[in-house]
């Protein structure tokens, strides 16, 4: 299993591929630390560890931010996420979304 530092490095590399967003890279770096709270279900690499949790790796930040905000407001409900999102600040939401969005993924095969 890869260590957290490897993932942080991966995120920074990914962020470097999008030059204008230095702030975004910082968000992703902060998000890497905060994502420890997500790892049990979604994996630090954004690949879900539980069958009832979605993969977050490479998910667009705009989608992730909206999901977290709507869980937090109660507009969207899930027994786990409604609780997990409750304590998140706006900064947390932005950092976490930036982190998972920055993980690069590759599709290996489609069903035949």
């Amino acid at each position, binding site marked *: *299993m890869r*260590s*957290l530092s490897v993932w942080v490095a991966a995120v920074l590399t990914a962020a470097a591929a999008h030059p204008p967003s230095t702030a975004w890279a910082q968000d992703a770096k902060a998000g890497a630390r905060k994502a*420890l*709270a997500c*790892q*049990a*279900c979604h994996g*630090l690499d954004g690949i879900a*560890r*539980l*069958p*009832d949790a979605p993969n977050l790796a490479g998910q667009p930040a705009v989608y992730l931010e909206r999901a977290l905000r709507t869980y937090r407001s109660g507009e969207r409900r*899930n*027994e*786990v996420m*409604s*609780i*997990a999102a*409750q304590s998140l600040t706006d900064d947390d939401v932005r950092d976490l979304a930036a982190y998972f969005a920055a993980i690069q993924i590759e599709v290996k095969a489609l069903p035949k």
Partner: protein
Amino acid sequence: MSAKLSVATLAIALAFAGPAVAQQNIENLKQMKLSGVDVSLPPVPQTGKNADAIRENLKRIKLPPGFKIDLYAVVPDARHMAVAPSTNMLFVGTRKNTVWAVTNRNSGDMATEVKPFAPSAQFHVPNGVCWTKDGFLIVVEHNRVLNFPAAEFFYEGGDVAVIEVVPQGKLIPVEEESYNHHARTCRIGPDGMLYITLGQPFNVPPREKLALFNKVGIGGIVRMNAFDGSKREVYATGIRNSVGMDFNPKDKTLWFTDNQTDGMGDDIPAGEVNRATAPGQFFGYPYICGKTRITEFGYDKDPLPANTVAPQVLMDAHAADLGMVFYTGKQFPAKYQGGFFSAQHGSWNRTKPIGARVMFTSLKADGTADKTEVFAEGWLDDATGTYRGRPVDVAVMKDGSLLVSDDFAGALYRITYQP
């Protein structure tokens, strides 16, 4: 069946593999006919990079002196375990669609083969596996219960005979199906009945659900005939989400873990291990959890029901106590004999993660819990807060060694003792 026909059937089965096909497969298997589904699935590789990485992780596991932990098998999504009564194999449930058959052909230190069991049954969250006294394997899914006669001898053939104990959609009302707390566990009681834990799907159940849940046994434990599902009754209520139980072979009482309410803070409520000494007992949820009154929906404003049975053991909040087993072996020192091991999956929403351990609890002479201590730990990296594994269940092998399943790493570990 001709080869051509079976290939055609397989293609159809794969193209339209839905509930109707699953039910037809079960009908075929019940009549000991072939399902027509390809049952020659490839085994899970037991060597290579993944196995090596898991072994490397195990170097960090701390155990009491004289104990040793090794990789026993690579088993993706490994959840609850049922060690075969006669042969050197076991079945392992998952929260996905597979029950694994784990075989040790050479009686060596590791399993030699890991393959899907009865793939044509098309399991859905087959988390709970257990044996009847006569060697029938019970598989409890999200909303179905199957019974496989002599499974430890017949599994190699792929298609196996099956008895439908509870048909699809009849374990709980279909409208109450949820993807939260839907992993069942099972045991056969001293009365020969099949006991099943049924988690309730909410963090805290709303009041309007309580009457239905108590009637069905959701948020409780039910028991029934292990072959035809008859004589079903609710055995215990007032439970939030139990994902592990075992009968004490000495006094026949039923012990079970219960997972605590989320969202009330890092250090409350405590996790529970409970002891049911008779049918019909009430264990306090949703009015109380550990020692904490539940505030959601105002349950703390209600008087605590007078008949509430208190937990035997209070565990660390959010550590997520899952599978448990009484130690019936002789290999471990005397202090472990007659007590029980329990697995902690580890927290998901605590500021500083806790858990991912195997605990041991000794009993007093009167059969109640005495002391609880950490037996195995190290899957949670304290420095970084990252998980290297998450224990789910514990099982005693015939030689007295202890198996631990891990659905995060996808592995079974074997703990042995040599003085």
